[in-house]
């Protein structure tokens, strides 16, 4: 990435992508998947069933030695995250919604949570948004409205409440969220990592700035993008051409959500997850 010297943050941005100097950051899906290490916090861009980096998840699961003990970070988690949970890569989940919307509960997440096999870092929209903003601002927290009066704090004993220094009340001090690798799926990218995400931004821009390493998978990778960008290549370490890389989630306006594929998944799981995964990794469902 850029060469701006040392940084003193808790989670400094990455210090040099695959291609080092700005230039060609294109790598393969397998190379991208190899960047994730045991115990990393892995953030997945997009929203629930929309523009998720599914091709990347498949590459990660195809690794001979898939990294384990991951912390999965997403504003909302869906199909792609459920696969990672089902395959046993995920130890902790940080999200404010894990499910398949009208297609139902996320079966492997629901099962693993019910069996006590997951650590859930209970989040809300505000805790994720303020937490990422804290990371970007280089501070340990951001105060915000929310949570007080609910039982959220009882399941997040790590989260503190601070006194309002200018008044009588108190605020939740939403803690900074660190991220090792963020993976975002783009409509278009260029080889420097500049990218167009479309209008459904979610928290992708903040994830890209907060993460130590950033991978962009894209429907199309061109030489140079000159349209208005959603993401500057400055923060991107690897660019991966991945046509239909969000399938079966949607990549609006290029292709719709594949609801039939989601139904096949929810009907197979959790009972037949292993078979489903084998077939999916072979590409039978592509």
């Amino acid at each position, binding site marked *: 990435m850029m060469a701006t010297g040392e940084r003193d943050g808790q989670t400094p941005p990455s210090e040099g992508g695959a291609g080092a100097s700005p230039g060609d950051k294109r790598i393969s899906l397998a190379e991208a998947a190899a960047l994730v290490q045991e115990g990393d916090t892995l953030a997945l861009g997009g*929203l*629930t*069933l*929309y523009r998720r980096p599914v091709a990347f998840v498949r590459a990660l699961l195809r690794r001979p030695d898939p990294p384990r003990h991951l912390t999965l970070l997403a504003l909302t988690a869906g199909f792609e995250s459920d696969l990672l949970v089902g395959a046993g890569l995920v130890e902790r989940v940080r*999200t*404010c*919604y*894990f*499910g398949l*919307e*009208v*297609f*139902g*509960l996320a079966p492997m*997440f*629901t099962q693993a*949570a*019910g069996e*006590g096999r997951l650590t*859930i870092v*209970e*989040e*809300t*929209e*505000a*805790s*994720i*948004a*303020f937490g990422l*903003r804290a990371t970007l601002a280089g501070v340990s927290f951001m105060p*915000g*409205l*929310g*949570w*007080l*009066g*609910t*039982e*959220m704090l009882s*399941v997040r004993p790590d989260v503190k409440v601070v006194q309002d220094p200018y008044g009588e009340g108190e605020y939740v001090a939403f803690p900074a969220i660190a991220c090792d690798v963020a993976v975002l799926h783009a409509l278009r990218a260029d080889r420097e990592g500049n990218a167009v995400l*479309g*209008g*459904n*931004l*979610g*928290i*992708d*821009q*903040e994830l890209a700035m907060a993460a130590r390493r950033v991978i962009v998978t894209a429907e199309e990778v061109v030489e140079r993008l000159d349209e208005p960008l959603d993401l500057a290549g400055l923060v991107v370490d690897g660019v991966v051409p991945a046509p239909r890389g969000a399938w079966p989630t*949607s990549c*609006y*306006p290029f292709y*719709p*959500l*594949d*609801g*039939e594929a989601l*139904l096949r998944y*929810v*009907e197979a799981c959790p009972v037949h997850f292993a078979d489903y995964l084998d077939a999916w990794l072979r590409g039978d469902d592509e």
Partner: protein
Amino acid sequence: METTKFADDFTVDELISVCIARQIANGELIVQGLATPLVMAGYILAKLTHAPDVLFASAIGQSLCRGWAPPSLSHAEAMWLDKALITFGFTRVATELLPRFRPKEFFRPAQVDPYGNTNNVFIGQDYHRPRLRLPGSGGIADVTTYGDQAYLYVPRHSRIVFVERLDFRSGLGHHPARKRGRGPRYLVSDLGQFDFEGPEGRMRLVTLHPGVTLRRVQRKTGFPLEVAPDLHETPPPTAEEVHLLREVVDPLGIRRLELLSGQARRQMLREILARESGGA
């Protein structure tokens, strides 16, 4: 003045969407969460009837929209991206738009207690080994603590949803711990409409849907019901409202999914998907 023509036949999903629509005032900013097609149908119906100037915001797209498009399973983004006036991203929505404007939003709780406190996190006695883990609270644990425009809907009224004690309080109702804002103002289920004007903000039955008895509502509610002194029948949908819902607002009937579960819901999903890919 014309007399209102009520619909001869209507279904409960239509009635719920109509009740939602009637809670919307013209000019409001109204927010839709994930997977809430009954709400979307109600919002669009409001726009096409008495509230042409509402502005829509949604979890999907994080945009403001003046225009609309029919709900879709495969192209859920269409309305929110093609009609977007301005796009914010989720971080600005959660940290700026929602706390600053405190817009009206309809939430669907998995559990609700007599005071409108709600739970969307887990069912069971032990958070670490829940009987049923739910998707999570989204932004409900945020906005219900400071806003005053929380509205609730329950498509399938039962003692599983309406409980004396929540397993987890992820949405704040009329609760003594509240510091800011106020608890929910309104709840609609498939049996009736409720406010929270009972003692200390207790839920109170205000109207019974046509054909529903008070006894039935009480039997399906896990706590003693307060009843408004002027309990009456929910005004049924008008012929025009039913026509709009069926033919214009939501011709695929996506709103109906919220009344189904399991195999029945999957069956209907397949039918809708087939109609969408067949080029509706």
